[in-house]
């Protein structure tokens, strides 16, 4: 196989994607708690997977230029749709995981500050006060 520039471009894109996917996996092992692991496991791998889709698009465009068969354009467009779906669903999934972890009471380790915990405590206190007030009011009525 001769290394023409489209082949070199495809190989570079593949190398970038594999490097970022590997970094995401390493981060999954190195980071201390669920939130920082989510950073490594969803973000780096998203970036790597975006480059995988770029590779597929570049490869199919190259094949289309070589063979002029329309199915390769079809492949590129479908990969583009997969990329849009990935960009829409991946952050939503990460957000759902982080929110569920925080609602379960998982504390961020080594945290320098935690505004959400303070806000939650404030909310709980106000809810408690309201409940007590309600009970008192009902007691007076009774």
């Amino acid at each position, binding site marked *: 196989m001769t290394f023409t520039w489209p082949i070199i471009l495809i190989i570079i894109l593949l190398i970038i994607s594999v490097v970022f996917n590997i970094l995401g996996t390493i981060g999954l092992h190195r980071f201390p708690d669920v939130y920082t692991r989510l950073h*490594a496991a969803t973000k780096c791998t998203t970036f790597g997977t975006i480059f995988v889709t770029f590779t597929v698009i570049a490869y199919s465009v190259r094949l289309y230029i070589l063979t002029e068969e329309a199915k390769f354009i079809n492949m590129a467009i479908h990969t583009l749709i997969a990329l849009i779906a990935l960009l829409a669903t991946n952050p939503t999934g990460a957000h759902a995981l*982080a929110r569920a972890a925080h609602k379960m009471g998982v504390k961020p380790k080594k945290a320098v500050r935690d505004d959400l915990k303070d806000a939650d405590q404030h909310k709980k206190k106000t809810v408690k006060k309201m409940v007590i007030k309600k009970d008192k009011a009902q007691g007076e009525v009774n």
Partner: protein
Amino acid sequence: MKRGKAFVSTFLFALFSYLLLTIAAGQSMAQEAPWSHIIWSFEELIIGISVSLIVAALADHILCRTENFRMLNPVRWLIMLIYTIPLFIEMVKANFDVAYRVITGKIEPGIVKIDPDLETDLGITILANSITLTPGTLTVDVDDERSEMYIHWIKVGEDPTENIAGRFVRWIRRFAE
């Protein structure tokens, strides 16, 4: 009038999705034209339009529930398309930052509160997803009433509202508000 707008937007969206999925899937009528194997044939267009009409008639009140049709303006879609370029640049920069932190292990995580001051649901959704897509920041929770967001930040720094969301908010305000 509202029903008509909902019908037309659902129809256009369904037709666009159909045409995107069936591009280059068959031979067109005009064989001698240079793009004849890319574009759609006449029969395909008829089927696409009729299926989209059926979908729009049956499901426009489910798929298009909004009261405000500001997103029908094509300029907003153009700006949204341009917005992907700064978003991608930020992703590249931030990815190298997180890669550095993965290798060295220098992290100072924390959850910070930001107040982006966006009003619409679409703007808040796009901002939350953009923040989560750029590595180093992760949207944990959104306050529905006051449009405040709680962001898990891998290296807590000064002025979170400007440093995390400032550049995105300026773009999103142009097309989503």
